[in-house]
């Protein structure tokens, strides 16, 4: 057995050692030039393709596009109310924030169909009359591992809604809601730029964006409730 193995090994070594002997050195150099270009070309191909995948195709695959259940015109409503955003997105007596309005608030004005818009009619017949809550998709919804108090930021910190939410109050229609297929959260949290770059303070709502402002404004470095610092300022 052992002798046969050794023989086979010897044969293959012979074959390998034969290759340089039979080949002509000139042809070898030409081929090397060509293959060098090829290597660079393929490197660039791979590089560009993956950049295209990463920057363009990946975000398209990552997010699903969802329409809001009812078309809504913020700008128009804003003109009709007295207290700006807080007319509908109000603070309750205990200081908690009401978030997206419930049907109960809409009903004050929309018990009957107003005007002639189709969306209005759809809203009244499908939701108001059937007493169903509208399943609004919330662009700024954060994961439940974070305590976020609106009242602390808006009332005590004197911040504008725009600082985090942008100019949604002036929009005439609701944007398409893009849902992350993995985490289930809105694209607004990471920001519309897949690279995570932002121009405005409201372009992203990740932890770093909170931290940036907290550092800049030198706000409490510990949780008011638990008096713990670092992560526990916001995290449960």
């Amino acid at each position, binding site marked *: 057995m052992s002798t046969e193995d050794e023989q086979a090994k010897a044969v293959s070594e012979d074959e390998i050692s034969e290759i340089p002997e039979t080949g002509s050195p000139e042809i070898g150099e030409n081929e090397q030039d*060509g*293959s060098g270009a*090829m*290597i*660079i*070309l*393929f*490197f*660039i*191909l*791979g*590089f*560009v*393709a*993956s*950049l295209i*995948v*990463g*920057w363009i195709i*990946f*975000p398209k695959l*990552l997010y699903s596009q969802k329409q809001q259940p009812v078309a809504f015109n913020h700008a128009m409503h804003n003109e009709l109310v007295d207290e700006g955003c807080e007319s509908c997105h109000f603070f*309750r007596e*205990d200081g*908690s924030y*009401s*978030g997206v309005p*419930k049907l109960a608030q809409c009903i004050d004005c929309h018990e009957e169909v107003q005007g002639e818009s189709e969306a209005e009619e759809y809203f009244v017949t499908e939701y108001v009359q059937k007493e169903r809550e509208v399943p609004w998709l919330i662009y700024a919804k954060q*994961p*439940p*591992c974070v305590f976020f108090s609106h009242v602390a930021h808006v009332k005590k910190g004197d911040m504008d809604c725009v600082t985090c939410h942008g100019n949604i109050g002036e929009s005439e229609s609701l944007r398409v809601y893009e849902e*992350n297929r*993995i*985490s*289930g*959260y809105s694209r607004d949290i*990471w920001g519309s730029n*897949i*690279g*995570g770059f932002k121009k405005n303070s409201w372009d992203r709502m990740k932890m770093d964006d909170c931290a940036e402002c907290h550092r800049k404004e030198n706000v409490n470095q510990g949780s008011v409730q638990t008096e713990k610092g670092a992560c526990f300022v916001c995290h449960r």
Partner: protein
Amino acid sequence: MKIDRRSFLSFTIGGAAGTALSPLPWKLTDDMAIWTQMWPWTPVPEKGEVTYVKSACTLCPGGCGISVRKVDDRIVKIEGLKGHPVNDGSLCILGLAGAQLLYGPRRVKAPMKKINGKFREVSWEQALDEISKTLADLRSKGEPHTVACIADSDRGTVPELLNRFLRVYGSRNFIRTPSIQDSYELTLNLMQGVRAMAGFDVNNADYVLSFGSGILDGWGSPVHMFKAHSLWREHGGKLIQIEPRLSSTAAKSDSWIPINPGTEGTLALGIAHVMIKESLYDNDFIDNYSTGFHEWKRHIIDGYNPEIVGKVTGVAPSTIVGLASSFARARKPLAVCGRGKGLTPGSLKEFMAVHTLNAMVGNIGKEGGIWAVPEPEYIEWPELEMDQTASIGTQQHRADGAGSSLYPQARYLLNRLPETMNASSTYKLIQVLFVAGANPVYSMPGSADIKEAFEKIPLVVSFSSYMDETAQMADLILPNHTFLERYEDVPAAAGYNRPVINLARPVVEPRFNTMHTGDVIIRLARALGGTIAKALPWESYEACLEEMMGDRWDTLVEEGYWTNTDFAAPQWSEAFETASGKFEFVNKEISSLARYSPVKPEGDEAAYPLILIPFDTMRLWNGYIGDPQFVIKSVPDTVLKKNDVLVEVNPATAKSIGLRDGAYAVLSTPKGKARVKVHFYEGVMPGLVALPRGLGHSAYENNLAGKGINFNELVGPFDDAATGHDAAWGIRAKLAKA
């Protein structure tokens, strides 16, 4: 151009470099992190408006006030109601898990009718129509007395409505499920001449002699008792626990006195003997406010000296003398009885024996003593106008034999019902049975006999909100709203010494197609017409309740409870309504009852050398409510391991049979057999086997169903000679290798 291996490698490296410079890996990592931190299937309470609703817990007779935290329309937490006289902000494990009974899987979602052994949904109209036709039919045949109702309470508007309905229909068969309330009521009635509930001023007691009462295992009003126990700890109060097993209560007592099971009454009389001999009693009370003491004294002196009592009870004579001395010398001593959670009425004479200890130290109606709490008086309905059928019907004997010549003292005898019904195979004693807020098929001893009796009843109607064992045996289920969806007055907290009324109210809208039992009764009355409709004239249950509450309604709605803060026990000169106007140690009625003797366990000693006793804990509920999911999860694996129940056996006893710790064994009693696991426990007296109550459900979801053994399948009722109430505290048993 030739694409070779190197080109391919180069492409890959280029791709890797490009990927690293694209957001893909970083974004994916971030998303994965978010996903793994917030599993989408982990329930997270919705955000919304937080509100609190004051209401009442009805899951046990404890009478706690609750504050229910809601986020929008969803109940997220139940807390104790701060300032409530019974539980002041605290709550027990069952009350905390109450929301699971609302949202959990065991609900009956619509009226159901059993057709060929299977439940089918029917409309309320159809269900009510069917019942009213059957009821009308029975009346026309002159058999209204064959209608009966089992309920968990006889106080409050719903039980009173049921009772009133039955009466005016022509039946006396309203039956309350048994508990120590039966024995305490009779004790107060016979010795003090009052119709009242026993209340215990535990907060102010400083020496509590507990004859097996599970002070920390769910006796009385559980949360109130827990709080009282904490007060004793704080103020130096003492708890002496007398029972054969080291229960949680015994473990947290100041002194645990193991006693031969069933002989607690003998020990009480032994203590009385020492108190008499050493003149350790309240002379003022005995001389001026009691009668029959000297006659009673002779009987105690003759029969209960510490040596004799020591032999019977297994408690050393010196201990008996010590107990008598420290009990009588305490500033505010209190003696209580009723084993475990107090679900078995027990021997009346045993209760009377313990009550005489209270009388001898003169703590009746005193601070830290035992009080007679009058029955709630707010339900005042006009005298019933009975038609002829009803008059004849209500002259018939009760189906359970309560109040008969054999058992004249008893008001309700549910435990006697199966035996009476099963004795005859043809005569229809009960033709229609309503069951409200009770699960007798599970909770009554002698499960097999109960089932047999239920099968004989042509129409069983269950009002249960849950698919429990009794509902499963019913022909019709008319599901009530759960306690978080309905109005109901809850008068009196078990063992609390002042009158209190709680108001349960709809914290959320009913989730399913259920109906308030009060409304069902009013609608049935309306359908039957005549005097019956006249007797229950209300538009709805809510209207009836509001009318009954009168001036109290506003307080109830605002506070969640009503209490009479001015209530004080009457002076001794006015407290007793007996013939003599005094506390009676002996009277004609008491003398006519069978004498006290320890209740013997059923079974032959040779065939069944051991004795099986049950035990109760806060983690296992065995009345109408079975453990919700959170509560059953809290049961330790020394009690329940997967689906096997562990029986507690003293290692000495187990070794003598050749059983190892953790081994399977067959537990058999004259009533049945079960496969169990053995758990070595030094805290149970040799010769005993202890089995927890509250397991072995055949109904409910699989968190509870099929886990362990139902104690009631292994034991039968044992009629107390004096009253007919169930006085069984255990049964003879045998444990053998499996």
